[in-house]
């Protein structure tokens, strides 16, 4: 009798889970459609779904979208939406994973120096390029920012694990603080000698998706896919690690190895999206927590739902960023915080009263 009751209960839990995934998936698809339909130039919004239908095989619809209009949608809006999907999902799943391996809800994916390293890299590129017209064969900005981010985290990890006791994460986090300060100091020093690039660096730091191209998407896609797959594979182990290092070890988890692999994967993903979009704050903390409040704290749900909802959130945030100050762009980092923070506070409030 009791066995019957438990299996009923767990079956209901699975149903619940299915609906969360379905809802998040539908939300993401809707956001992507809206993201493709809205913009300062291009065809009337309602023609775009028709044209998308028309482009499916075996279906022919007269949407009245001209080739040049379609060009605007496909070459300007589409890469931007796709990049928002990639950046939003990667920052969210990386944030959730960092929070898992450090067992600290306030941690974001920039914890171990990704942001400072990438910022320093970007500053160096802007300073070197200033005054001369760009004669580079390829745009060095994403590559150098990516390199800077990885070097910063590598230094943090080596220093933190060399000096720290074998399983303490505090040393690692403190090493991250030190590396971040160091990189920020060097960045400030360079900026002071090249005050003409302050504006460029500042706007890069606030994050942007406006210059997104299919090239950017192709550049980051391999790293992002690798990182997301590795993190999703660790979702059950992250649940085991919720009982702390000692108990996870006693339950047969190689805690140090799991932490290393998860941190590396999350860093790789974060560094690559930061390289093309700058520092978009807030997403990596807020989305995982929103997911926890809505669907429960198990990483089996938090990680995949963070991917879906993080993507939907950033695509949605990118829409006001295009139209609010038309024709200028509002930095997306401003929009995520401006709309995300009140939403999150509201969620926190309603959840607390309902429990």
């Amino acid at each position: 009798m009791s066995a019957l009751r438990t299996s009923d209960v767990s079956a209901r839990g699975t149903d619940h889970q299915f609906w969360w995934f379905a809802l998040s998936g539908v939300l993401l698809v809707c956001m992507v459609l809206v993201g493709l339909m809205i913009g300062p130039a291009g065809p009337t919004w309602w023609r775009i779904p028709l044209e998308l239908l028309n482009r499916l095989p075996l279906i022919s619809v007269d949407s009245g979208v001209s080739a040049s209009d379609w060009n605007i949608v496909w070459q300007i809006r589409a890469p931007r939406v796709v990049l928002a999907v990639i950046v939003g999902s990667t920052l969210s799943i990386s944030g959730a994973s960092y929070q898992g391996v450090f067992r600290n809800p306030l941690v974001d994916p920039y914890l171990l120096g990704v942001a400072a390293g990438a910022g320093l890299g970007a500053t160096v590129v802007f300073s070197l390029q200033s005054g001369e017209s760009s004669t580079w064969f390829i745009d060095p900005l994403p590559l150098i920012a990516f390199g800077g981010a990885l070097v910063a985290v590598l230094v943090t990890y080596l220093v933190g694990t060399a000096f720290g006791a074998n399983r303490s994460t505090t040393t690692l986090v403190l090493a991250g603080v030190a590396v971040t300060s160091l990189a920020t100091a060097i960045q400030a020093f360079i900026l002071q000698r090249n005050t003409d690039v302050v504006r460029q660096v500042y706007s890069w730091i606030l994050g942007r998706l406006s210059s997104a191209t299919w090239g950017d998407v192709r550049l980051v896609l391999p790293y992002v896919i690798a990182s997301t797959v590795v993190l999703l594979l660790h979702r059950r182990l992250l649940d085991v690690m919720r009982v702390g290092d000692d108990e996870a070890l006693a339950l047969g988890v190689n805690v140090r190895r799991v932490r290393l692999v998860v941190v590396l994967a999350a860093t790789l993903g974060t560094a690559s999206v930061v390289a093309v979009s700058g520092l978009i704050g807030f997403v990596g903390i807020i989305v995982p927590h929103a997911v926890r409040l809505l669907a429960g704290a198990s990483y089996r749900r938090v990680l995949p739902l963070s991917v879906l909802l993080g993507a939907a959130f950033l695509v949605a945030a990118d829409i006001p960023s295009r139209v609010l100050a038309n024709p200028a762009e509002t930095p997306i980092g401003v929009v995520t915080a401006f709309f995300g923070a009140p939403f999150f506070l509201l969620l926190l409030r309603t959840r607390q009263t309902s429990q």
Partner: protein
Amino acid sequence: MSTLGFCNLGVSYDGVPAVVDFNDILYSGEWLCLIGPNGAGKSSVLRAAAGLVSYSGSVAIDQNEIPATSARWRARHIAYVPQSPVIPTDMIVHDYVLLGRNPYIKHFASESQNDRDVVERVLHRLDLTSFTKRPLGTLSGGEVQRLVIARALAQEAPVLFLDEPTSALDIGHQQQALELVDGLRREQGLTVVSAMHDLTLAGMYADRLVLMHQGRRVAEGTAQHVLRSETLAEFYGVTARVHHEPDGTVVVIPQRTPSL
């Protein structure tokens, strides 16, 4: 089910020895209790054998030495209940007990039906079925202790380590928890090693006591043999009366020293 052997087990923290040459052999189904003052090395013995701190010497189960590198192998043979377990308050009871199945699940796989069946049996055995969906944060101290033991049982390990299993419980729940462990070891032949501060309870439940002091074993045997006022005075620095009940229970009663 399984014998457990310690051979020259040694633990040191930053060069300071905490456990020196600990040797013992437990037969299957035996309950050994480590007693001794704070810092005597009781917990270190358990933590070393559970693989949480590095050690010298060896620990063997059924004469197979535990490989130093395989946390999974160890977790299939030794279940460890820590002194103050970390309780993720928003995890539900069922999922928490399911964590005990980790040593049997491949790294990136999920639980099999067998794993779920084991969890259901354990929940049933420990009368936790009505709690299945409850978040851990809503449970009382006694319920949490039962839950942690449930997770350890889900590991289906022949050896159970308990580090201060009753220190956070009231007298009634202390008795319940220890009776539960005793019942389980009789049913399933579990070999139990516990570290305890309450000498009377230790003497009541364990087959054998080992008194440790500064990392070394200084006395061992039955409660009647180990729990003597002169021994306790020497190693605990306590003035205590030891009272023998007719049924063999040894009661340790601390006494006030007359003020000077």
